[in-house]
């Protein structure tokens, strides 16, 4: 049968329905009225070996099993991300709806660009994980440029999507001062979080910063 625009059965909080919210940048947040869930997609981006998988691994290790699903890692035999890591995480309830974030990483190595493009599809928020070491500065800049380019290829604009810059590996000796890194890599006044993902410093602050922006976008509708 054909639905009509003025059908009396508009969604209510008690109806069973799914809403695929599509904004002009094609972000997809699923709101499931049946199980009262919101599902959002967060992607961790950055150069090779910057600590994207380590962020997810720390979140996985320090979250109660009932709040998260499996951590799926499609990695090479040497533990380099081949396609993506994936982990569903339930944060809690807002207005009676369970908020579930699907966390993804991309493979950082330059030659996996086709995979990175695919993983950005339907993204609601992005975390850029920068490697603070001096010798990785060029890789950071190249990866950030690649992020902007790949987002644009999917009709997203980095300037408009929920976005956080994480300065990782702050515990290493040969790092660039945070102020310099921020000056070089910050694009739009996004939150900047200093982190040591291997020990968990800044990991949840980063997630919180991007999740807040995603939920704030939901409020805008």
């Amino acid at each position: 049968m054909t639905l009509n625009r003025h059908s009396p059965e508009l969604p209510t909080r008690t109806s069973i329905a799914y809403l695929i919210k599509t904004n002009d940048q094609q972000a997809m947040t699923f709101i499931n009225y049946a199980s009262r869930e919101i599902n959002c997609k967060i992607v961790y981006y950055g150069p090779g070996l910057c600590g994207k998988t380590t962020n997810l691994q720390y979140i996985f290790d320090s979250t109660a099993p009932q709040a998260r699903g499996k951590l799926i890692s499609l990695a090479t035999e040497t533990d380099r991300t081949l396609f993506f890591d994936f982990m569903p995480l339930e944060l809690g309830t807002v207005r009676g709806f369970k908020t579930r974030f699907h966390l993804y990483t991309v493979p950082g190595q330059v030659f996996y660009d086709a995979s990175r493009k695919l993983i950005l599809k339907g993204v609601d928020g992005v975390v850029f994980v920068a490697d603070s070491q001096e010798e990785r500065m060029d890789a950071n800049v190249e990866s950030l440029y690649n992020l902007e380019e790949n987002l644009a290829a999917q009709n997203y604009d980095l300037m408009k999507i929920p976005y956080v810059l994480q300065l990782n590996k702050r515990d290493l000796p040969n790092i660039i001062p945070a102020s310099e890194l921020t000056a070089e890599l910050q694009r739009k006044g996004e939150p900047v979080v200093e982190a040591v993902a291997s020990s968990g410093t800044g990991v949840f602050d980063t997630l919180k910063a991007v999740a807040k922006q995603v939920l704030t976008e939901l409020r805008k509708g």
Partner: protein
Amino acid sequence: MPDTPILLREQHYHQIKAVLARLRMDASAKAVFLVDKDGQEIASQGELGNLDTTSLASLAAGNVAATGGMAQLIGEKEFPTLSHEGDRESIHISVVGRLLLVVLFDDRSSLGLVKLRSKQVSQQLSRMFDEITEANSDDLESPFAGITDEDIDSLFN
């Protein structure tokens, strides 16, 4: 992409579940899922048991995305179906517009039967989603329009 949401009303949700249940029966399948191309599970039917359907949905979408990327490299738009046959369990995936129809089956069925039944249902699901898309409501307000900063902060406390 139009700036409008797609809404599945309760009756359509039940219609989709009914279509999946019928497919499961006709194809002698263990379970049937409808998944968004971005990896979100929409509906499922069958012997789910302890199956991690969230991960399955994400990996099915990744799989289709990867093979779709290969298709474009060789000049194809996409590969509309994918099959993976294991010793005991097998998976067949059909691309239906922006959705993926995933059928899990074992030796009680066969790839040929699953392919045939999936193809028949794909056309039906495609028509249903065309109707749903046409019926998109433009006066829909986000149920989260009223959430406050405190609501959001409370998630992290």
